[in-house]
Protein backbone atom coordinates (compact mmCIF):
# COMPACT_ATOMS: atom_id res chain seq x y z
CA UNK A 1 0.00 0.00 0.00
CA UNK A 2 1.41 3.37 -0.91
CA UNK A 3 2.09 5.95 1.77
CA UNK A 4 -0.10 9.02 2.01
CA UNK A 5 -0.17 11.93 4.39
CA UNK A 6 -3.72 12.24 5.70
CA UNK A 7 -4.60 14.90 8.25
CA UNK A 8 -7.64 13.90 10.32
CA UNK A 9 -6.97 16.03 13.39
CA UNK A 10 -8.82 19.24 12.48
CA UNK A 11 -10.22 19.60 16.00
CA UNK A 12 -6.65 20.01 17.25
CA UNK A 13 -5.86 22.66 14.66
CA UNK A 14 -6.48 23.35 10.98
CA UNK A 15 -4.21 24.19 8.06
CA UNK A 16 -4.28 27.84 6.99
CA UNK A 17 -6.86 28.49 4.27
CA UNK A 18 -5.06 29.55 1.06
CA UNK A 19 -7.14 32.75 0.88
CA UNK A 20 -6.21 33.57 4.49
CA UNK A 21 -2.55 33.01 3.75
CA UNK A 22 -2.72 35.17 0.63
CA UNK A 23 -4.43 37.99 2.50
CA UNK A 24 -2.00 37.84 5.42
CA UNK A 25 1.03 37.79 3.13
CA UNK A 26 -0.37 40.77 1.21
CA UNK A 27 -0.78 42.69 4.45
CA UNK A 28 2.43 41.55 6.11
CA UNK A 29 3.94 45.03 6.05
CA UNK A 30 1.07 46.52 7.99
CA UNK A 31 3.17 47.19 11.05
CA UNK A 32 1.61 50.32 12.52
CA UNK A 33 0.34 50.27 16.07
CA UNK A 34 -3.45 50.52 15.81
CA UNK A 35 -3.41 52.82 18.85
CA UNK A 36 -1.16 55.42 17.14
CA UNK A 37 -2.82 58.55 15.80
CA UNK A 38 -0.62 58.89 12.70
CA UNK A 39 -1.34 57.39 9.31
CA UNK A 40 0.64 54.18 9.98
CA UNK A 41 -1.48 53.56 13.06
CA UNK A 42 -4.72 54.56 11.36
CA UNK A 43 -4.11 52.10 8.53
CA UNK A 44 -3.71 49.27 11.03
CA UNK A 45 -6.72 50.45 13.06
CA UNK A 46 -8.86 50.42 9.94
CA UNK A 47 -7.97 46.78 9.22
CA UNK A 48 -8.52 45.72 12.83
CA UNK A 49 -11.95 47.35 12.96
CA UNK A 50 -12.98 46.08 9.53
CA UNK A 51 -12.26 42.53 10.66
CA UNK A 52 -13.83 43.03 14.08
CA UNK A 53 -17.05 43.84 12.22
CA UNK A 54 -16.74 40.72 10.03
CA UNK A 55 -16.31 38.53 13.11
CA UNK A 56 -19.13 40.29 14.99
CA UNK A 57 -21.49 39.84 12.04
CA UNK A 58 -20.60 36.15 11.91
CA UNK A 59 -22.18 35.57 15.35
CA UNK A 60 -24.79 38.38 15.11
CA UNK A 61 -23.04 40.64 17.64
CA UNK A 62 -22.10 44.33 17.50
CA UNK A 63 -18.42 45.09 16.89
CA UNK A 64 -18.09 46.75 20.32
CA UNK A 65 -19.14 43.45 21.91
CA UNK A 66 -16.04 41.70 20.53
CA UNK A 67 -12.60 41.85 22.11
CA UNK A 68 -9.54 40.19 20.62
CA UNK A 69 -7.45 37.94 22.86
CA UNK A 70 -4.46 35.65 22.41
CA UNK A 71 -6.37 32.36 22.29
CA UNK A 72 -9.59 30.56 23.11
CA UNK A 73 -7.95 29.54 26.36
CA UNK A 74 -7.37 33.18 27.28
CA UNK A 75 -11.00 34.03 26.54
CA UNK A 76 -12.18 31.20 28.82
CA UNK A 77 -9.77 32.23 31.57
CA UNK A 78 -10.93 35.84 31.29
CA UNK A 79 -14.61 35.02 31.78
CA UNK A 80 -14.19 32.54 34.63
CA UNK A 81 -11.71 34.79 36.43
CA UNK A 82 -14.43 37.45 36.70
CA UNK A 83 -15.53 35.50 39.76
CA UNK A 84 -12.19 36.19 41.40
CA UNK A 85 -12.18 39.90 40.74
CA UNK A 86 -12.11 41.98 43.89
CA UNK A 87 -13.79 44.90 42.13
CA UNK A 88 -17.42 45.42 42.91
CA UNK A 89 -18.21 46.18 39.32
CA UNK A 90 -17.72 42.60 38.27
CA UNK A 91 -18.56 40.76 41.43
CA UNK A 92 -22.04 41.60 40.38
CA UNK A 93 -23.99 39.80 43.00
CA UNK A 94 -21.74 40.92 45.83
CA UNK A 95 -21.08 37.27 46.53
CA UNK A 96 -18.07 36.44 48.68
CA UNK A 97 -17.34 33.07 47.11
CA UNK A 98 -19.53 33.05 44.02
CA UNK A 99 -20.70 29.77 42.63
CA UNK A 100 -19.50 28.66 39.20
CA UNK A 101 -21.20 25.84 37.36
CA UNK A 102 -19.63 24.01 34.46
CA UNK A 103 -19.80 20.56 32.88
CA UNK A 104 -17.57 17.52 33.23
CA UNK A 105 -16.70 17.53 29.52
CA UNK A 106 -15.32 21.07 29.14
CA UNK A 107 -11.95 21.85 27.59
CA UNK A 108 -9.05 21.98 30.10
CA UNK A 109 -8.96 25.78 29.59
CA UNK A 110 -12.24 25.85 31.53
CA UNK A 111 -11.75 22.88 33.87
CA UNK A 112 -8.24 23.84 35.00
CA UNK A 113 -9.26 27.46 35.54
CA UNK A 114 -12.25 26.63 37.75
CA UNK A 115 -10.18 24.00 39.57
CA UNK A 116 -7.69 26.70 40.47
CA UNK A 117 -10.45 29.06 41.66
CA UNK A 118 -12.40 26.39 43.51
CA UNK A 119 -12.43 26.78 47.28
CA UNK A 120 -10.40 30.00 47.12
CA UNK A 121 -12.37 32.67 45.34
CA UNK A 122 -15.24 30.55 44.05
CA UNK A 123 -17.17 27.35 44.66
CA UNK A 124 -17.49 25.09 41.66
CA UNK A 125 -20.13 22.53 40.76
CA UNK A 126 -20.00 20.16 37.80
CA UNK A 127 -22.99 19.08 35.73
CA UNK A 128 -22.95 15.51 34.43
CA UNK A 129 -23.66 14.47 30.85
CA UNK A 130 -25.61 11.50 29.51
CA UNK A 131 -24.14 8.65 27.47
CA UNK A 132 -24.21 10.77 24.30
CA UNK A 133 -22.58 13.77 25.96
CA UNK A 134 -25.66 15.96 26.51
CA UNK A 135 -25.83 18.11 29.65
CA UNK A 136 -28.28 16.89 32.30
CA UNK A 137 -30.59 19.89 32.42
CA UNK A 138 -32.52 18.68 35.48
CA UNK A 139 -29.32 18.52 37.44
CA UNK A 140 -28.28 21.97 36.23
CA UNK A 141 -31.63 23.40 37.27
CA UNK A 142 -31.36 21.80 40.72
CA UNK A 143 -27.93 23.41 41.17
CA UNK A 144 -29.26 26.79 40.09
CA UNK A 145 -32.31 26.54 42.33
CA UNK A 146 -30.34 25.50 45.40
CA UNK A 147 -28.11 28.56 45.51
CA UNK A 148 -27.45 31.73 43.51
CA UNK A 149 -24.77 31.12 40.88
CA UNK A 150 -22.60 33.78 39.24
CA UNK A 151 -21.49 32.18 35.98
CA UNK A 152 -22.47 29.00 34.19
CA UNK A 153 -20.06 27.84 31.49
CA UNK A 154 -21.10 25.09 29.07
CA UNK A 155 -19.32 24.46 25.78
CA UNK A 156 -21.32 24.65 22.54
CA UNK A 157 -19.73 21.59 20.94
CA UNK A 158 -17.31 19.15 22.49
CA UNK A 159 -13.84 18.84 20.99
CA UNK A 160 -13.43 15.10 21.62
CA UNK A 161 -16.82 13.63 20.77
CA UNK A 162 -18.45 16.50 18.86
CA UNK A 163 -21.72 16.57 20.81
CA UNK A 164 -23.60 19.86 20.37
CA UNK A 165 -25.57 21.24 23.33
CA UNK A 166 -28.83 23.10 23.06
CA UNK A 167 -27.27 26.40 24.07
CA UNK A 168 -30.45 28.45 23.62
CA UNK A 169 -32.31 26.24 26.07
CA UNK A 170 -29.45 26.19 28.58
CA UNK A 171 -28.97 29.98 28.42
CA UNK A 172 -32.70 30.53 29.04
CA UNK A 173 -32.59 28.25 32.08
CA UNK A 174 -29.50 29.98 33.47
CA UNK A 175 -31.05 33.43 33.01
CA UNK A 176 -34.22 32.29 34.73
CA UNK A 177 -32.03 31.99 37.84
CA UNK A 178 -30.25 35.34 37.30
CA UNK A 179 -26.83 33.90 36.54
CA UNK A 180 -24.55 34.83 33.63
CA UNK A 181 -23.96 32.34 30.84
CA UNK A 182 -20.72 31.66 28.98
CA UNK A 183 -20.20 29.20 26.16
CA UNK A 184 -16.92 28.04 24.66
CA UNK A 185 -17.83 27.88 20.97
CA UNK A 186 -14.33 27.19 19.69
CA UNK A 187 -15.25 23.79 18.21
CA UNK A 188 -18.70 24.86 17.01
CA UNK A 189 -17.78 28.06 15.18
CA UNK A 190 -17.52 27.66 11.44
CA UNK A 191 -19.33 24.32 11.64
CA UNK A 192 -22.78 25.36 12.86
CA UNK A 193 -24.54 28.76 12.81
CA UNK A 194 -23.98 30.88 15.89
CA UNK A 195 -26.37 33.66 16.86
CA UNK A 196 -25.57 35.27 20.21
CA UNK A 197 -28.82 37.27 20.18
CA UNK A 198 -31.07 34.33 19.42
CA UNK A 199 -29.17 32.10 21.88
CA UNK A 200 -29.05 34.96 24.42
CA UNK A 201 -25.59 34.22 25.78
CA UNK A 202 -23.54 36.68 27.85
CA UNK A 203 -20.07 35.53 26.87
CA UNK A 204 -18.85 33.41 23.96
CA UNK A 205 -15.36 32.19 23.06
CA UNK A 206 -13.95 31.92 19.52
CA UNK A 207 -10.55 30.91 18.14
CA UNK A 208 -9.09 31.48 14.67
CA UNK A 209 -6.86 28.44 14.28
CA UNK A 210 -9.75 25.98 14.44
CA UNK A 211 -11.33 27.62 11.39
CA UNK A 212 -8.35 27.69 9.01
CA UNK A 213 -7.03 30.96 10.43
CA UNK A 214 -3.73 31.73 12.19
CA UNK A 215 -2.74 30.61 15.68
CA UNK A 216 -2.39 33.01 18.58
CA UNK A 217 -5.61 34.91 18.04
CA UNK A 218 -9.02 34.44 19.63
CA UNK A 219 -12.05 36.55 20.37
CA UNK A 220 -14.41 36.96 23.28
CA UNK A 221 -17.98 38.16 22.85
CA UNK A 222 -19.14 40.21 25.84
CA UNK A 223 -22.81 41.17 25.76
CA UNK A 224 -23.43 44.88 26.11
CA UNK A 225 -24.21 45.84 29.70
CA UNK A 226 -22.75 42.71 31.29
CA UNK A 227 -20.23 43.58 34.03
CA UNK A 228 -16.67 42.92 33.00
CA UNK A 229 -13.11 43.53 34.03
CA UNK A 230 -9.94 42.49 32.23
CA UNK A 231 -7.66 39.57 32.88
CA UNK A 232 -4.68 41.45 31.43
CA UNK A 233 -4.07 45.02 32.56
CA UNK A 234 -1.70 47.61 31.17
CA UNK A 235 -3.24 49.54 28.34
CA UNK A 236 -6.41 51.04 26.95
CA UNK A 237 -6.66 48.64 24.01
CA UNK A 238 -9.99 46.96 23.34
CA UNK A 239 -11.75 49.75 25.26
CA UNK A 240 -9.72 48.87 28.34
CA UNK A 241 -10.93 45.28 28.29
CA UNK A 242 -7.70 43.60 27.20
CA UNK A 243 -4.30 45.29 27.36
CA UNK A 244 -1.57 44.60 24.83
CA UNK A 245 -0.97 45.91 21.33
CA UNK A 246 -3.44 44.25 18.99
CA UNK A 247 -2.16 41.36 16.89
CA UNK A 248 -3.24 43.13 13.69
CA UNK A 249 -1.96 40.46 11.33
CA UNK A 250 -3.64 37.72 13.35
CA UNK A 251 -6.87 39.71 13.50
CA UNK A 252 -7.05 40.21 9.76
CA UNK A 253 -6.23 36.53 9.19
CA UNK A 254 -9.02 35.69 11.62
CA UNK A 255 -11.42 37.99 9.75
CA UNK A 256 -10.54 36.45 6.39
CA UNK A 257 -10.96 32.95 7.85
CA UNK A 258 -14.44 33.92 9.02
CA UNK A 259 -15.30 35.33 5.59
CA UNK A 260 -14.28 32.05 4.01
CA UNK A 261 -16.31 30.10 6.57
CA UNK A 262 -19.40 32.10 5.61
CA UNK A 263 -18.94 31.02 2.02
CA UNK A 264 -17.88 27.42 2.57
CA UNK A 265 -19.35 26.03 5.76
CA UNK A 266 -22.82 24.98 4.57
CA UNK A 267 -21.72 22.80 1.65
CA UNK A 268 -18.69 21.60 3.51
CA UNK A 269 -20.84 20.45 6.45
CA UNK A 270 -22.96 18.30 4.14
CA UNK A 271 -19.89 16.86 2.45
CA UNK A 272 -18.06 16.12 5.71
CA UNK A 273 -21.10 14.46 7.26
CA UNK A 274 -21.24 12.08 4.28
CA UNK A 275 -17.52 11.33 4.58
CA UNK A 276 -17.78 10.82 8.32
CA UNK A 277 -20.70 8.45 7.90
CA UNK A 278 -18.74 6.53 5.31
CA UNK A 279 -15.78 6.29 7.69
CA UNK A 280 -17.99 5.24 10.58
CA UNK A 281 -19.88 2.59 8.57
CA UNK A 282 -16.63 1.32 7.07
CA UNK A 283 -14.91 0.92 10.43
CA UNK A 284 -17.93 -0.80 11.98
CA UNK A 285 -18.10 -3.15 9.01
CA UNK A 286 -14.40 -3.99 8.92
CA UNK A 287 -13.49 -3.98 12.61
CA UNK A 288 -15.42 -5.87 15.29
CA UNK A 289 -15.86 -4.73 18.89
CA UNK A 290 -15.93 -0.96 18.44
CA UNK A 291 -18.00 1.69 20.13
CA UNK A 292 -18.90 5.06 18.66
CA UNK A 293 -18.97 7.79 21.30
CA UNK A 294 -21.02 10.95 20.83
CA UNK A 295 -24.47 12.08 19.82
CA UNK A 296 -26.13 10.32 16.91
CA UNK A 297 -27.70 13.50 15.52
CA UNK A 298 -26.44 16.58 17.38
CA UNK A 299 -22.78 16.26 16.48
CA UNK A 300 -20.43 18.52 14.53
CA UNK A 301 -20.25 17.06 11.02
CA UNK A 302 -16.58 16.06 10.75
CA UNK A 303 -15.96 14.56 14.19
CA UNK A 304 -15.97 10.80 14.82
CA UNK A 305 -14.88 9.32 18.13
CA UNK A 306 -14.62 5.59 18.15
CA UNK A 307 -13.27 3.22 20.74
CA UNK A 308 -11.51 -0.02 19.90
CA UNK A 309 -11.77 -2.77 22.48
CA UNK A 310 -8.61 -4.51 23.57
CA UNK A 311 -6.14 -2.01 22.14
CA UNK A 312 -4.45 1.02 23.61
CA UNK A 313 -4.97 4.32 21.81
CA UNK A 314 -1.41 5.58 21.70
CA UNK A 315 -0.32 2.43 19.89
CA UNK A 316 -3.10 2.89 17.34
CA UNK A 317 -2.19 6.57 16.92
CA UNK A 318 1.48 5.81 16.33
CA UNK A 319 0.84 2.93 13.91
CA UNK A 320 -1.50 5.23 11.96
CA UNK A 321 1.15 7.95 12.10
CA UNK A 322 3.68 5.56 10.59
CA UNK A 323 1.21 5.17 7.71
CA UNK A 324 0.91 8.96 7.45
CA UNK A 325 -2.51 9.25 9.10
CA UNK A 326 -2.86 11.88 11.84
CA UNK A 327 -5.52 11.37 14.53
CA UNK A 328 -5.75 11.86 18.27
CA UNK A 329 -6.59 9.61 21.22
CA UNK A 330 -8.16 9.69 24.67
CA UNK A 331 -5.52 7.32 25.99
CA UNK A 332 -3.66 8.37 29.12
CA UNK A 333 -0.38 7.41 27.55
CA UNK A 334 -0.47 10.14 24.95
CA UNK A 335 -1.60 12.85 27.32
CA UNK A 336 1.44 12.89 29.58
CA UNK A 337 -0.85 12.48 32.57
CA UNK A 338 -1.96 9.10 33.82
CA UNK A 339 -5.61 9.92 33.33
CA UNK A 340 -7.52 8.81 30.25
CA UNK A 341 -10.00 11.13 28.55
CA UNK A 342 -12.29 12.85 31.08
CA UNK A 343 -14.87 13.25 28.32
CA UNK A 344 -15.18 9.54 27.50
CA UNK A 345 -15.31 8.69 31.22
CA UNK A 346 -18.03 11.33 31.72
CA UNK A 347 -20.24 9.57 29.19
CA UNK A 348 -20.20 6.56 31.52
CA UNK A 349 -17.79 4.35 29.60
CA UNK A 350 -14.99 2.70 31.56
CA UNK A 351 -11.25 3.33 31.43
CA UNK A 352 -10.59 0.61 28.84
CA UNK A 353 -12.88 2.35 26.36
CA UNK A 354 -11.27 5.71 27.14
CA UNK A 355 -7.74 4.33 26.66
CA UNK A 356 -8.76 2.77 23.35
CA UNK A 357 -10.55 5.76 21.87
CA UNK A 358 -9.51 7.44 18.65
CA UNK A 359 -10.80 10.77 17.37
CA UNK A 360 -10.98 11.33 13.64
CA UNK A 361 -11.72 14.97 12.87
CA UNK A 362 -12.26 15.75 9.20
CA UNK A 363 -11.91 19.15 7.55
CA UNK A 364 -12.25 21.15 4.35
CA UNK A 365 -9.24 19.44 2.76
CA UNK A 366 -10.40 15.87 3.56
CA UNK A 367 -11.15 13.76 0.48
CA UNK A 368 -12.98 10.49 -0.12
CA UNK A 369 -9.69 8.94 -1.25
CA UNK A 370 -8.26 9.69 2.17
CA UNK A 371 -11.20 8.03 3.91
CA UNK A 372 -10.71 4.97 1.67
CA UNK A 373 -7.02 4.92 2.60
CA UNK A 374 -7.89 4.96 6.32
CA UNK A 375 -10.42 2.17 5.81
CA UNK A 376 -7.76 0.13 4.00
CA UNK A 377 -5.12 0.77 6.66
CA UNK A 378 -6.89 0.75 10.01
CA UNK A 379 -8.29 -2.82 10.20
CA UNK A 380 -4.83 -4.34 9.82
CA UNK A 381 -3.45 -2.13 12.58
CA UNK A 382 -6.24 -3.02 15.01
CA UNK A 383 -5.84 -6.69 14.09
CA UNK A 384 -2.10 -6.61 14.72
CA UNK A 385 -2.49 -4.88 18.10
CA UNK A 386 -5.32 -7.17 19.18
CA UNK A 387 -3.19 -10.17 18.33
CA UNK A 388 -0.58 -9.06 20.84
CA UNK A 389 -3.13 -7.85 23.42
CA UNK A 390 -3.72 -9.41 26.82
CA UNK A 391 -7.35 -8.27 26.79
CA UNK A 392 -10.31 -10.46 26.01
CA UNK A 393 -12.80 -8.81 23.68
CA UNK A 394 -15.98 -8.05 25.58
CA UNK A 395 -19.56 -7.47 24.38
Amino acid at each position, binding site marked *: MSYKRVYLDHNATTPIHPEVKKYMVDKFDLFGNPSSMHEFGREARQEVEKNRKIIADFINASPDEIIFVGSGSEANNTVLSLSACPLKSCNIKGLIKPKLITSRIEHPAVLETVKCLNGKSAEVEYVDVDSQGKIKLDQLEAMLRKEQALIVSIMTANNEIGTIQNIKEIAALVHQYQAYFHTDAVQAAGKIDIDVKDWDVDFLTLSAHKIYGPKGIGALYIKKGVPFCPLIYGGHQEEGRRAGTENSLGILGFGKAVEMRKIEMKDEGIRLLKLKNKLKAGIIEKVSHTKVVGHEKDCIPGTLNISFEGVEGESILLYLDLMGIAVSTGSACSSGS*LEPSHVILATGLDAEFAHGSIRFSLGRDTTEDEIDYVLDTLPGIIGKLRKMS*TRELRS
Partner: protein
Amino acid sequence: MSDSNWVYTENVKDHFMNPRNILDNIEEYKYDGYGKTGNIQCGDEMLFVIQVKDNIITDVKWKTYGCASAIASTSKLSEMVVGMSLDKAYHISPQDVVKALGGLPDKKIHCSVLGDRALRAAIDDYYRKHGMDDKIEAQNAKVVCNCMNVTDKDIEDAVLEGARDFKTLQEMTKLGTVCGECKDEALTIMEEYIEKYFD
Protein backbone atom coordinates in the same frame (compact mmCIF):
# COMPACT_ATOMS: atom_id res chain seq x y z
CA MET B 1 6.92 6.68 4.93
CA SER B 2 8.43 9.75 6.42
CA ASP B 3 10.92 8.77 9.10
CA SER B 4 12.09 12.16 10.25
CA ASN B 5 11.60 13.40 13.79
CA TRP B 6 9.73 10.41 15.10
CA VAL B 7 8.62 10.59 18.72
CA TYR B 8 10.98 7.78 19.61
CA THR B 9 14.40 6.55 18.48
CA GLU B 10 14.81 4.38 15.38
CA ASN B 11 15.46 1.40 17.64
CA VAL B 12 12.21 1.97 19.56
CA LYS B 13 10.36 2.38 16.29
CA ASP B 14 11.79 -0.87 14.96
CA HIS B 15 10.72 -2.82 18.06
CA PHE B 16 7.31 -1.12 18.07
CA MET B 17 6.66 -1.96 14.43
CA ASN B 18 8.12 -5.45 14.56
CA PRO B 19 7.79 -6.65 18.12
CA ARG B 20 9.86 -9.81 18.83
CA ASN B 21 8.68 -12.91 20.66
CA ILE B 22 4.96 -12.19 20.72
CA LEU B 23 2.96 -14.98 22.36
CA ASP B 24 0.75 -16.45 19.70
CA ASN B 25 -1.29 -19.03 21.55
CA ILE B 26 -0.84 -19.73 25.23
CA GLU B 27 -2.51 -23.13 24.89
CA GLU B 28 0.31 -24.25 22.64
CA TYR B 29 3.20 -22.72 24.54
CA LYS B 30 4.71 -24.88 27.28
CA TYR B 31 5.93 -22.36 29.81
CA ASP B 32 7.77 -22.90 33.07
CA GLY B 33 6.96 -19.53 34.55
CA TYR B 34 3.98 -17.20 34.06
CA GLY B 35 3.73 -13.53 35.08
CA LYS B 36 1.07 -10.89 34.55
CA THR B 37 1.16 -7.31 35.81
CA GLY B 38 -0.39 -3.94 35.15
CA ASN B 39 -3.77 -2.42 35.56
CA ILE B 40 -6.28 -1.62 32.88
CA GLN B 41 -7.32 1.55 34.73
CA CYS B 42 -3.87 2.95 33.96
CA GLY B 43 -4.05 1.69 30.42
CA ASP B 44 -1.52 -1.08 30.40
CA GLU B 45 -1.30 -4.75 31.12
CA MET B 46 1.54 -7.19 30.44
CA LEU B 47 1.84 -10.98 30.28
CA PHE B 48 5.23 -12.68 30.21
CA VAL B 49 5.97 -16.41 29.98
CA ILE B 50 9.35 -18.11 30.17
CA GLN B 51 10.92 -21.48 29.41
CA VAL B 52 13.80 -22.47 31.68
CA LYS B 53 16.50 -25.13 31.57
CA ASP B 54 19.21 -25.49 34.24
CA ASN B 55 18.36 -22.06 35.64
CA ILE B 56 18.92 -20.50 32.23
CA ILE B 57 16.09 -18.80 30.34
CA THR B 58 15.86 -20.64 27.02
CA ASP B 59 12.85 -18.88 25.48
CA VAL B 60 10.30 -16.18 26.33
CA LYS B 61 7.01 -14.92 24.92
CA TRP B 62 4.87 -11.93 25.89
CA LYS B 63 1.68 -10.00 25.15
CA THR B 64 0.49 -6.55 26.14
CA TYR B 65 -2.33 -4.07 26.20
CA GLY B 66 -0.01 -1.12 26.17
CA CYS B 67 1.46 1.87 24.44
CA ALA B 68 4.43 2.10 22.08
CA SER B 69 6.96 2.36 24.93
CA ALA B 70 5.59 -0.73 26.65
CA ILE B 71 5.64 -2.68 23.38
CA ALA B 72 9.14 -1.59 22.33
CA SER B 73 10.75 -2.02 25.73
CA THR B 74 9.26 -5.45 26.32
CA SER B 75 10.23 -6.54 22.83
CA LYS B 76 13.82 -5.47 23.55
CA LEU B 77 13.75 -7.09 26.98
CA SER B 78 12.53 -10.34 25.46
CA GLU B 79 15.62 -10.41 23.23
CA MET B 80 17.99 -9.54 26.05
CA VAL B 81 16.98 -12.21 28.53
CA VAL B 82 17.14 -15.32 26.34
CA GLY B 83 20.27 -17.22 27.36
CA MET B 84 20.53 -15.32 30.62
CA SER B 85 20.58 -16.96 34.06
CA LEU B 86 17.40 -16.54 36.09
CA ASP B 87 19.33 -14.62 38.69
CA LYS B 88 20.72 -12.15 36.18
CA ALA B 89 17.39 -11.72 34.40
CA TYR B 90 15.70 -11.18 37.74
CA HIS B 91 17.90 -8.18 38.39
CA ILE B 92 17.70 -6.58 34.99
CA SER B 93 16.45 -3.03 35.48
CA PRO B 94 14.19 -0.88 33.32
CA GLN B 95 17.15 1.45 32.84
CA ASP B 96 19.13 -1.38 31.20
CA VAL B 97 16.33 -1.88 28.69
CA VAL B 98 15.87 1.83 28.05
CA LYS B 99 19.61 2.18 27.48
CA ALA B 100 19.59 -0.74 25.04
CA LEU B 101 16.78 1.00 23.13
CA GLY B 102 18.76 4.21 22.88
CA GLY B 103 16.54 6.07 25.30
CA LEU B 104 12.88 6.94 25.82
CA PRO B 105 11.29 10.30 26.57
CA ASP B 106 11.23 10.86 30.38
CA LYS B 107 7.46 10.81 30.42
CA LYS B 108 7.41 7.34 28.92
CA ILE B 109 9.86 5.67 31.27
CA HIS B 110 7.02 4.56 33.52
CA CYS B 111 5.45 2.60 30.64
CA SER B 112 8.66 0.66 30.15
CA VAL B 113 8.76 -0.80 33.67
CA LEU B 114 5.87 -3.10 32.87
CA GLY B 115 7.92 -5.63 30.94
CA ASP B 116 10.52 -6.31 33.59
CA ARG B 117 7.83 -6.46 36.29
CA ALA B 118 6.01 -9.14 34.32
CA LEU B 119 9.29 -10.96 33.71
CA ARG B 120 10.08 -10.92 37.44
CA ALA B 121 6.58 -12.20 38.18
CA ALA B 122 7.22 -15.05 35.73
CA ILE B 123 10.54 -15.89 37.40
CA ASP B 124 8.83 -15.74 40.83
CA ASP B 125 6.29 -18.20 39.49
CA TYR B 126 9.10 -20.49 38.38
CA TYR B 127 10.88 -20.20 41.76
CA ARG B 128 7.64 -20.98 43.57
CA LYS B 129 6.99 -24.07 41.46
CA HIS B 130 10.54 -25.32 42.04
CA GLY B 131 10.79 -24.83 45.80
CA MET B 132 13.11 -21.85 45.45
CA ASP B 133 10.92 -19.44 47.40
CA ASP B 134 13.95 -18.02 49.20
CA LYS B 135 14.97 -16.37 45.94
CA ILE B 136 11.76 -14.37 45.67
CA GLU B 137 12.69 -10.85 46.58
CA ALA B 138 9.27 -9.26 46.34
CA GLN B 139 8.24 -11.33 49.35
CA ASN B 140 10.64 -9.36 51.47
CA ALA B 141 9.43 -6.09 50.08
CA LYS B 142 6.66 -4.28 51.84
CA VAL B 143 3.59 -3.18 49.91
CA VAL B 144 3.07 0.55 50.37
CA CYS B 145 0.35 1.22 47.81
CA ASN B 146 -2.27 -1.49 48.04
CA CYS B 147 -4.31 -0.28 45.08
CA MET B 148 -1.47 -0.50 42.58
CA ASN B 149 0.62 -3.06 44.47
CA VAL B 150 3.71 -0.88 44.72
CA THR B 151 6.38 -1.80 47.28
CA ASP B 152 9.06 0.10 49.14
CA LYS B 153 11.53 -1.53 46.75
CA ASP B 154 9.70 0.03 43.82
CA ILE B 155 10.03 3.40 45.52
CA GLU B 156 13.75 2.74 45.90
CA ASP B 157 14.01 2.00 42.17
CA ALA B 158 12.11 5.16 41.35
CA VAL B 159 14.44 7.25 43.46
CA LEU B 160 17.39 5.66 41.70
CA GLU B 161 15.79 6.56 38.39
CA GLY B 162 15.41 10.18 39.39
CA ALA B 163 12.19 10.63 41.40
CA ARG B 164 12.59 13.52 43.82
CA ASP B 165 8.98 14.59 44.35
CA PHE B 166 5.66 12.85 44.80
CA LYS B 167 4.35 13.63 41.33
CA THR B 168 7.38 12.07 39.67
CA LEU B 169 7.20 9.13 42.06
CA GLN B 170 3.58 8.62 40.99
CA GLU B 171 4.43 8.79 37.32
CA MET B 172 7.17 6.20 37.70
CA THR B 173 5.47 3.72 40.01
CA LYS B 174 1.76 4.57 39.58
CA LEU B 175 1.64 4.59 43.37
CA GLY B 176 -1.15 6.59 44.99
CA THR B 177 -3.05 7.03 41.74
CA VAL B 178 -6.23 5.31 42.92
CA CYS B 179 -7.23 6.04 46.54
CA GLY B 180 -4.19 8.12 47.48
CA GLU B 181 -4.08 6.88 51.08
CA CYS B 182 -0.43 5.86 50.92
CA LYS B 183 0.87 9.34 50.12
CA ASP B 184 2.38 10.18 53.54
CA GLU B 185 4.07 6.82 54.00
CA ALA B 186 5.38 6.88 50.44
CA LEU B 187 6.83 10.38 50.92
CA THR B 188 8.65 9.29 54.07
CA ILE B 189 10.14 6.24 52.32
CA MET B 190 11.13 8.32 49.30
CA GLU B 191 12.92 10.83 51.54
CA GLU B 192 14.77 7.98 53.27
CA TYR B 193 16.05 6.62 49.97
CA ILE B 194 17.02 10.05 48.67
CA GLU B 195 19.02 10.53 51.84
CA LYS B 196 20.54 7.06 51.57
CA TYR B 197 21.73 7.40 47.99
CA PHE B 198 22.11 11.06 47.22
CA ASP B 199 22.67 13.16 50.33
